[in-house]
Structures are given as C-alpha cells and as structure tokens.
C-alpha cells in the first residue's frame, strides 16, 4: 500500500487552506480574450446559439418576474447573472447527455430547445404542462431533451445522477450525466454520498456546482469554511476545476474537457462555477434584508451576457441592430406565449390520481369517484374542476 510508505516524524498539521484552486477565465468583461488563454472551439453559429439562449433566458426571467408581480403567476425564480454557466455548460454537452439540475438552470433548457410555449405551459400549470399542474412554477422537465424533471428537495438529484450515469456506462452508449446544484445544496449529505460513490464506482458524471455566493439569505461564508467546493473533490480522489461562471467561453471549455474525462475515461469530475445570484432568491424573497446594494452593483458590472456580447461584437458576429431586434422579438414571443398559456384549459380532474402508480389502485379510484360526486354537489366551490367533472 503506497500510502503506508509516506511517513513523517513531526506532527505537522495539513492546514485547512492547503489547496487553493484558481479560477479558469478566458474572457475579460470588455469581450477581449485574455492573452494566452485557452478558448473553446466555437464557430459563429454555435456562438450565436449560445448567446441567443442566454438572452432568451434573461428576457424570460424579466417578464415572468413581472408577471408574478402582477399576480398572474404564483411564483417565479430568476437566474440573472448565471446565464453563462447555465447555458455554457449545456453547450459543451452532447444533446443526449442527461441533465439533472436544481431549479435555476432554465438556460440549459433554453439552449436545448425547450420552446417558450413549453416553458409557459409549466409555469401556468395548464393542460399542456408535462407535469400536469402538480409542481410549482419552474419545475420543468423534458424527456425528449434529456432534462430530468426538477424536484424541490435539494441535492437529491446528485446521487441520482451518479446512478443514472452508472446505467449509461453499463449501456455503453458514451453518454454522461451532468448534475447541477448550488453551493448551498453541496452541504447536504446526499452530495457526499454521491461524489464518493461516483469516484469509487467510476461513473461518467459531471458534478457542476453553481457557487453564486448565497443560499437564500445565507452567504457562502456561513455555508462553508474552506476554499469553496472544488477542493472537496480531492477528498474523493476526483478531478476538479474551478471556472469563472460569468465567462461563457471558460465554462464551455471546462465542461468540454470534463465531458471527455467522464465519457472517455469514466472519470467523474467536479466543476465549480464562480458567479453571483444577482436577483432575489425567488419571487418570495427580498435580499435587502441580508445584503447590500454595493455588493450587487459590483457583480452587476460583471454581467455575463454583456461580456459575451462584447466578445461577439469583437468577433464581428453581432451588432447593435441585431441585438435590438432580438430583444424585441423575444419579448414579443414571451408575452404572446404567456397569453396563450394562461388561456388554455386547466388540468384534468382525473390527473389527481394518475401517475401515483403505473395504474391507480382501487382505493384511489374510489377516492376520485367520491370527489367527483362531491364536486357535482358543490360545483361553485371548485371552479377549476367543476366544469370538467363529467368529461375529460
């Protein structure tokens, strides 16, 4: 055993900061590439696709928060400031790689082609919502796009991603799983089990941590004492990299390399994207209670979308006229889709009891029948379902 050979005779403690992992960065805020920096291979079309998804995400977030404020939506959660991470990682993957995200990764879905209608159907929980109106807004999922339906309990998807990737390895299909989570979620026990199991069982999974400085009101200084999340990988014998999460090129390149390790060598990898949650945690939150505007402003100046735009402009792949047009178009699209989604019928009463099991057991069928009889008696009290109680 190799470890038995390494001996010392003085009781020296390894300090808590023995590893100081640097941040990989490619782009400056003005859009120039740092001299000597390693950039990903991105052609114009893909670059514009990425940018489009980032801008779409920003527009969606702005409009839907406004819709929530107007009372049209019960809840919303923005990803403002983290679009480079959430779009950039998806751009580095094969579209059939599985994504198991936390809840702030609408950018990845947008990149994969989740339509604005699909977003809206989930947000409004109408009859077209894949989730059948069961989960709160922003709990998206798409089987077609290999995007696992979001689940609110934090970190549960992390060991699940290890298992999913193990299945991919056995199937030999050269795909990997990427699981995304916040630095807060990384405190959960499930994180530990997942990384350790993945390392021991050598599964093609990428653990992507969005370290955005906060878990609701809790700053990362009260979340962990070490040098962030990346150094934990060494504790599991796993490779890791830290990347500037506001730099879409760096995120993309780091994830491309991570994917190679995962898919070609069945090596799990931990990637930590350093960013900042510019908006409130969600529409239920008010950050003025726990952080100051100066801090927010510092980060607003590092806007990842602006950074990419500056790069695109420098590449001559973009101009202000197209920018204006894109924004207008997207805003229109979002508003139109919202209107349509809101007008659609609601979910079917029957779907109260489907999907609990593959088939509803007898007791559930009875419960539905009693419920129907009750609604027939008091239709006014159940406006959402009374109309459909006898058909559909």
């Amino acid at each position, binding site marked *: 055993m190799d470890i038995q050979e390494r001996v010392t005779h003085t009781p020296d403690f390894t300090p808590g900061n023995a590893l100081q992992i640097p941040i990989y960065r490619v782009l400056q805020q003005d859009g120039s590439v740092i001299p000597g920096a390693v950039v990903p291979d991105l052609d114009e079309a893909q670059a514009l696709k990425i940018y489009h998804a980032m801008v779409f995400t920003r527009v969606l977030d702005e409009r839907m928060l406004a819709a929530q404020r107007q009372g049209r939506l*019960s*809840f919303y959660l923005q990803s403002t400031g983290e679009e480079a991470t959430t779009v950039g990682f998806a751009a580095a993957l094969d579209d059939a790689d599985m994504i198991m995200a936390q809840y702030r990764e609408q950018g990845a879905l947008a990149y994969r082609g989740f339509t604005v209608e699909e977003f809206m159907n989930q947000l409004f*929980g109408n009859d077209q919502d894949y989730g059948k*109106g*069961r*989960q*709160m807004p922003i*709990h998206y999922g798409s089987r077609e796009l290999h995007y696992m339906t979001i*689940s*609110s*309990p*934090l970190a549960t998807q992390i060991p699940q991603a290890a298992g999913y990737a193990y299945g991919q390895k056995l199937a030999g299909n050269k795909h990997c799983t990427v699981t995304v989570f916040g630095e*807060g*979620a990384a*405190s*959960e*026990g*499930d994180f530990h089990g997942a990384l350790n199991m993945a390392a021991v069982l050598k599964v093609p999974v990428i653990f992507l941590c969005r370290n955005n400085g906060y*878990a*609701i*009101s*809790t700053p990362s200084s*009260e*979340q*962990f004492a070490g040098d962030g999340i990346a150094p934990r990988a060494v504790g599991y014998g796993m490779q890791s990299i830290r990347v500037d999460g506001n730099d879409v090129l760096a995120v993309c390149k780091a994830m491309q390399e991570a994917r190679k390790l995962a898919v070609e060598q069945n090596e799990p990898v931990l990637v930590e994207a350093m960013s900042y949650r510019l908006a409130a945690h969600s529409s*239920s*939150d008010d950050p003025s*209670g*726990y952080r100051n505007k100066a801090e927010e402003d510092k980060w607003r100046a590092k806007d990842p979308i602006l950074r990419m735009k500056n790069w695109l402009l420098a590449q001559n792949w973009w101009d202000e006229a197209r920018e204006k047009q894109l924004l207008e178009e997207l805003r229109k699209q979002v508003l139109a889709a919202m209107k349509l989604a809101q007008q659609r019928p*609601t*979910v079917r*009463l029957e*779907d*109260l*009891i489907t999907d*609990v099991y593959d088939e509803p057991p007898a*007791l*559930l069928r009875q*419960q*539905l029948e009693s*419920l129907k009889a*009750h*609604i027939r*008696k*008091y239709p006014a*009290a*159940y406006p*959402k*379902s009374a109309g459909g109680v006898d058909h559909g």
Partner: protein
Amino acid sequence: MAEMNLLQAINNALDIAMASNDKVICFGEDVGVFGGVFRATSHLQEKYGRARCFNTPLVEQGIIGFANGLAAQGSVPVAEIQFADYIFPAFDQIVNEAAKFRYRSGNLFDVAGLTIRTPYGGGIAGGLYHSQSPEAYFAHTPGLKIVVPRNPHQAKGLLLASIRDPNPVLFFEPKRIYRASVGEVPEEDYELPLGQAEVLKEGADITLLAWGAQMEQIEKAAELAEKEGISCEVIDLRSILPWDADTVAASVMKTGRLLISHEAPLTGGFAGEIAATIQERCFLYLESPISRVTGLDTPFPLVLEKEYLPDHLKLFEAIKQSVNF
C-alpha cells in the same frame, strides 16, 4: 394582552424562552440575520447574539444531529427545519437518535432540551414539496412528543411548554395561517399543557376532531351542521404524541359518533390510529362508523389542491353521512 398573528406569537415565545434561559439556542437555515424565510426568528440574533441565534449550512441531518448533541450537553436547542417537507433527511437523527437517546442509555444521557420547529401543511400553492403534513410519519416513534397549535394563543403557550418539556418535541406550525390567524395573546410567559386535547365546543350528536390549520375547517363545518340541527362537539387534539385518548373517548361515549380530519393522505395517517383506538374503547357506544376525512392517497398536487384538501364542505357532508348512518 396583545393582538398577534401566529408568526408573531411564535416569535414572541422564542424571545421569552431565550430571555428566560440562556441555554436556549435557535438555529437553522436562514434563521440568523434574516430571521427565517417566514420571519419566525426575526430580531433574535440582534437581541441574543450570533452565538445563540444563527444560520446553519444547508443540511437537515446535520442540523438535527448537531441539535441532538447540543441537547445531550445540556443546552436547549430550538432547531428550525425550513419546511416540514424537508425534514426527511433528518429522519434518522429524529427517529433512531433523538427518540431513543434516553432509553438506550438507561437515562445516563438524554436530549431533554430538544425542540424542532417546522412549518407544515397545504393551501399555499406549494405543490408536492411545500405542503406536506408529515406528523403521522413521526407518530409511530415512542420517545417523541408531537405538538400542533391552531392559533396564536395556543402557539405561544404550547411552544413555551415544548421548549421546556424534558423530552424531544416536534412542533409543527400551520404555515397557511401564519399570518391569517390573528388573536389576543397574553404578553407574559405562560405554558399550555402537552398531551391534552381541548374541547372547544360541547355538543351532543357527533365529535369532530382535528388539529392545527384543519381546526378552521372543522369549525366551519360544525357551523353548517348546527344550522341543520346537528349538535357538534369540537375537539382540538393539540398533541399527536402522546395523544389524549381519554378526552376523545369520553366525548365519543357521549355523542356516539366521531369524525377525524387531517390534510395528510388517508392511508397511514394519524386518524387511523385514533379510529382504531376509539372503536376499541367505545365499541358499544358507537352509532355509526368512525369517519376519516383527509387528503387523497396521492402526493400533494398544485393546481387542484382545493380538490385534494378536506375542506369544510367535505367535512359537512361526512358529518351528515355519519349522523344519518
């Protein structure tokens, strides 16, 4: 007396508990500067310092493990789990550890000081994971006490009693009525007894039993029933474990009928335990089957939560059915 909502009453109870015993320590996710996502711990860090009121990392099993150790040391931890839906990662520390700490050590060690507070229940458009009522999951665990208050006055008195009770207590707070339930609350320090149900209204024809936010529905249903000439006895169970079978049995012996309601699914819910016990104790007195009006046997839905929940109309129908059996 002061008018308070349920959240204010809880905040007030925590304030009094911390002021009167410097061993009381409040912690959990976001409970520090921010005062908790519902603001139940507002201003406590300001008043009592960061050592006695603080944010923890995001790890429920760690929070309760830490709380168990702190209680074993002789402190009086009041740990918050942000939503009852997120208590399950701590299930082992609660069910295998807190509940069995005293017993397994032959009383050498205990977690007497432990209280776990957590908001529970539906009706807030929370879907699967911001709506659950998990009290029955814990009620199968000897060694725990479980308490659910129905209004501000109860919340303050029961929480103070829970914090000071020499056993680990799970305190479920009805978050739907955190702000909606408002009432007169004595400003001074007082406790209400654990393990005792309260008869809110006497009646002759049927006993209606519930706890927490569901009391509101029960009371509404009772009003509807009274209008139809059915006299209802209304009981708030208050403590789920140990529960006050004597009060319930005495009432059922008088009325001959029992209806129990909770938001959680029917199968394995605590109404089952109550019905099983009461059918045994009151067998010869029962004039109709004990009725349970509960959530459906499904996860908690979102859009159709009104349909899912046992509201006053469902209760009213069940009352009539029981009386006309």
